């Protein structure tokens, strides 16, 4: 059975590119335009992994992730944080990775395979 990955990003280009890429790798991909949309879709869908932009309009990401209990989340971040902050973010229960934008496409696929299987 296909594994599902959810991409949450307000940038349409990122959603589209990563979706095409991961579908080519055999994943079922769903997308959400912001945190509120993500929470809405999680009522219906159960992805193995969420790739979530850390900086989006709407509900702050820190409040969105608090409401997601059982799904692994990897942050996609254009925001620069310190190493200590990165560790702090990765210390949260279901945060499993921190991917800095702009990211290398092949590296992203590798990390998704590792995290989602």
């Amino acid at each position, binding site marked *: 059975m296909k594994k599902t990955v959810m991409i949450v990003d307000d940038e349409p280009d990122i959603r589209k590119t990563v979706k095409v890429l991961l579908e080519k790798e055999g994943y079922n991909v769903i997308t959400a335009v912001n945190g509120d949309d993500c929470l809405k879709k999680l009522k219906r869908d159960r992805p193995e992994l969420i790739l979530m932009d850390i900086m989006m309009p709407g509900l*702050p990401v820190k409040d969105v992730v608090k409401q997601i209990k059982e799904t692994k989340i990897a942050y996609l971040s254009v925001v620069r*944080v*310190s190493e200590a902050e990165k560790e*702090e973010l990765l210390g949260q229960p279901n945060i499993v990775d921190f991917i800095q934008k702009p990211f290398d496409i092949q590296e992203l696929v590798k990390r998704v395979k590792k995290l989602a299987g």
Partner: protein
Amino acid sequence: MGINISTELSENQTVLLIMPSADYNHNIVRVLKKLKGNVCYVTLNKTFESLTDLFKKNKINTENIVFIDAISKTIKQTPNQTDGCYFVSSPGSLTELSIAIDKFLRHDFDYIIFDSLTNLLIYERKTPVEKFVSSLVNKIKQSRTKAIFYALSVKEQDELIQETGMFVDRVIYLSK
């Protein structure tokens, strides 16, 4: 960076620096090294902690810099204020951002750095952003503080850059 920011700021009170993303960190460090005096640094794309790390690595004394950080609160539990930094809820909280900046402008800082206009558009539509920038530039013009606005040279934001360019005294494009 082929410009002398000190000269530019001696001739112009408000400057917009448009730069490619590849040289961004390099440029912000170089600008800061040239400024002598108190600086209010508004950050919309790096956390206070990450910026101070960057500046310390580049041997910039941060004692004369007060930060307004609109990022940290969006990603982690953050107090409203610490020594040297005032935290705003998000880059989209234009009113809160405006109040914080007003407060610092009243303290007669020598410089204010706004980093960057590009990030405002992630959270807000173009029109409120333009109004915010126009009102900010007017407030700066009523003070003795000199201002540097940063923006990334991205095609999608050409329009905002054009509009903002009309409010400031000088627009400088930094090439690679």
